[in-house]
């Protein structure tokens, strides 16, 4: 930028975006807290921060604004996580397209870039909703265009965009009932406003540092150096974020809970690695001190067996944590089935735990990405998983509504014929996979698998991570909550009562098979007790099956099909 702040070149643009990423990082907790639903799922602030962080990482500081924006948007598309991250990446893409080759951005140039950014945002979603990040992007663009028409320079236009964004954010509760009910503003919109604010602060000469202690890279360690030949049980890693974490106590406690223990960090952020037979116990202990992210649980016994059987290394968990984004965001991949003859169409699935990974692999899913709840894989993770398969035709099972957009983005970035089955839960992905027909072509399979999604009901049992009001029902943090096909329908202090009420909501007479997938926070014995209760109550059922899902946070994921 020049002395008067009237134009911005490539280097300045990059410094501005880096500042924006740092500013967003400082506000991740604030944005996450705006989530309306009290479920421990991929948080908006975390996803947007990881997306923007990936977008500015290793960008060459070229003099041309267009050359920098071009690099940034490509990285943003690949680094996008969660639906909010994907929309942010499309905003960045539109911004880059709006620069249209210009080496320097003046007021009108910036305004045009913002206008195009908003256009891209609206195109990114199938049914645009007002009162979201889309509205914030649009109002920011409109105000920028108005300021530019009044001869404002770069910084003044940016200031107008920030003012517009903040005004739009404040308006979101008037546009969306669920925000009004919850008494919050839209999280994605707020995230975007913070990004623009970061850009403006840098343009005005303020320095924004990365928040102390919160960068995962600063508490990273090399898992390869920790692992040894005689590893057993579950390799468990996670990040714990809080305010007054008794670090030494936590380290001592976790050290007593398993082998190969490494715990680093401070009172605000702890990164832990432990080999344990009971990963759920470790997570249950840690969650008492704050919020958990980047949870990865890998069954080392199974991995070793897989390596022995196939000669393939079954996951990349040993290398993923080297990168802070991977450590935070998941992205573990399973063994690639190199058997084109057996499966002429390749399948990629996202699964939130080792148990689900094993089941999908046993159903010949070629590549399973560990992720889902709390750790949405990036577009890049999906692109790589699709690319690794030997098949030219690939079907993706996202198994989570917050991974759908990243899957669609990956579809556009790979040079293969990719179809996405819009599975919103893991059981939906499971029935879709059972319906996969080895003798049918891609289109027939997509039709049959998509149709199969309607044959299953998904009951998810977890714990509320915040107080919330959903559909006039007050939910307190710590209560058991039940989601039916992704919608929160029950909450209460007694888990059994919540499960029973959930089952009552399902017309069980229509279903024959119930499968209970128990998570890392519970165990097989508890699942069996539940299975026995269901068998007794619904005697018409053909099968009531108990399986290990190993999913974090969700005690049980139950399917009725």
């Amino acid at each position, binding site marked *: 930028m020049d002395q008067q702040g009237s134009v911005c070149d490539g280097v300045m643009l990059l410094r501005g975006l880096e500042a924006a990423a740092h500013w967003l990082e400082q506000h991740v907790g604030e944005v996450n807290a705006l989530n309306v639903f009290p479920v421990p799922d991929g948080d908006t602030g975390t996803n947007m921060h990881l997306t923007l962080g990936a977008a500015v990482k290793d960008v060459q500081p070229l003099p041309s604004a267009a050359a920098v924006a071009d690099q940034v948007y490509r990285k943003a598309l690949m680094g996008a996580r969660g639906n909010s991250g994907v929309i942010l990446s499309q905003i960045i893409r539109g911004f880059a397209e709006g620069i249209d080759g210009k080496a320097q951005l003046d007021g009108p140039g910036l305004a045009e870039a913002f206008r195009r950014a908003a256009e891209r945002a609206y195109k990114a979603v199938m049914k645009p909703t007002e009162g979201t990040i889309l509205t914030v992007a649009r109002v920011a663009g409109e105000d920028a265009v108005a300021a530019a028409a009044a001869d404002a320079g770069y910084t003044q236009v940016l200031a107008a965009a920030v003012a517009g964004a903040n005004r739009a954010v404040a308006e979101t509760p008037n546009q969306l009932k669920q925000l009004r009910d919850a008494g919050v503003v839209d999280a994605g919109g707020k995230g975007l406003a913070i990004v623009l604010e970061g850009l403006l602060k840098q343009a005005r000469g303020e320095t924004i540092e990365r928040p102390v202690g919160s960068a995962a890279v600063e508490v990273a360690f090399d898992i390869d150096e920790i692992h040894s030949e005689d590893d057993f049980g579950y390799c468990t890693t996670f990040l714990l974020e809080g305010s007054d974490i008794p670090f030494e106590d936590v380290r001592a406690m976790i050290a007593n809970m398993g082998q190969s223990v490494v715990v680093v960090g401070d009172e605000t952020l702890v990164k832990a690695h432990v080999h344990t037979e009971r990963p759920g116990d470790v997570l249950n202990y840690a969650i008492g001190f704050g919020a958990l992210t980047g949870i990865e649980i890998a069954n080392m016994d199974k991995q070793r067996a897989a390596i022995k059987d196939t000669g393939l290394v079954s996951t990349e968990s040993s290398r993923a944590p080297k990168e802070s984004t991977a450590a935070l965001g998941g992205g573990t991949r399973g063994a690639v089935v190199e058997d084109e003859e057996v499966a002429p169409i390749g399948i990629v699935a996202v699964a939130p735990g080792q148990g689900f990974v094993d089941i999908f692999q046993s*159903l010949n899913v070629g590549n399973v990405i560990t992720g889902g709840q709390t750790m949405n894989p990036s577009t890049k993770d999906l692109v790589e998983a699709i690319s690794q398969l030997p098949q030219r035709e690939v079907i993706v099972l996202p198994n989570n509504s917050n991974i759908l957009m990243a899957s669609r983005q990956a579809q556009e970035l790979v040079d293969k014929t990719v179809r996405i089955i819009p599975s919103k839960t893991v059981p939906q992905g499971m029935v879709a996979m059972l319906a996969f027909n080895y003798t049918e072509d891609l289109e027939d399979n997509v039709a049959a698998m998509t149709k199969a999604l309607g044959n299953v009901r998904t009951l998810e049992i977890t714990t509320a991570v915040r107080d919330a009001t959903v559909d006039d029902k007050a939910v307190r943090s710590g209560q058991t909550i039940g989601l039916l096909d992704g919608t929160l329908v029950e909450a209460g202090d007694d888990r059994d009562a919540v499960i029973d009420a959930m089952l009552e909501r399902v017309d069980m007479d229509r279903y024959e098979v119930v499968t209970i997938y128990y998570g890392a926070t519970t165990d097989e014995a508890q699942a069996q007790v539940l299975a026995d209760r269901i068998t007794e109550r619904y005697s018409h059922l053909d099968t009531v099956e108990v399986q290990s899902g190993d999913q974090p946070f969700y005690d049980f994921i139950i399917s009725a099909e």
Partner: protein
Amino acid sequence: MSVAVVVDSTADIPQAMRDEYAISVVPLSIIFGNETFQDGVDMTSDQFYQRLTESNVHPSSSQPSPGAFAEVYERLAQNHAGIISIHISGKLSGTVRSAAQAQELVPNIPIRVIDSGSVSMGFGFLGLEAAKLARAGHTLDDIATQIERMVPNIRLWAVLDTLKYLERGGRIGRTRAFLGTLLNVKPMIQIKEEVLPAEQVRTHKKAIARMVDLASAEGPYEHLAVLHSAAEPLATELANQLGSLHPRDQIVTAQLTGVIGVHGGPGVLGVTGIKKA
């Protein structure tokens, strides 16, 4: 003099139809330990499945010898102008090769040996069609041409209770894709020359629904049959549900013969048909 029709015992043509159309059947063998039985001759399907569930010995099967075919061909040569001999897929059994060798041993009559690429009534219907054409006075070449044209129109899907028998019998082929599934599922297969994996279902009710869907998508059919191994009530249910695809009273119910039971095990349920050209 008319053309004679020969099939092997895996065609599963019900006895009444075989008698009506004078179709000759060459049996394969079922071997339980030291005992050998002629499939469908000295061991009926019912006896086989009874024994399969009671015996610890896993049975095996073997194709008829060229001599067994030659004997039948010689007998038919006495009062027929030609023989059409239709058999189980050459990728699943050596039967069709035994028949081809027998053809050379019996040079005094024209014989056409046809690999159906299928099993059970999938090619049993070809035997019936050939017999009808023979009765109408068609020549051997004409009958063979028409039957060969029907081969690509055969469809066969089946759901197995387990892959155990296919694996033991070495016929697992590409259905190895279904091995090791951690969920409690039933594999559904398609037979097209070999055993192909189709999809997986969790209950017989769903298996029936899916087979009706798959069969309907390929219909209409000249002939349709439901197949089963010791699972007649399920076969009846399947036939009832296929009623909208094909006249219910024309859907044949066939129990899989012991030789197929050796590889499919008990509890197999299937549907097969000849698509209308």
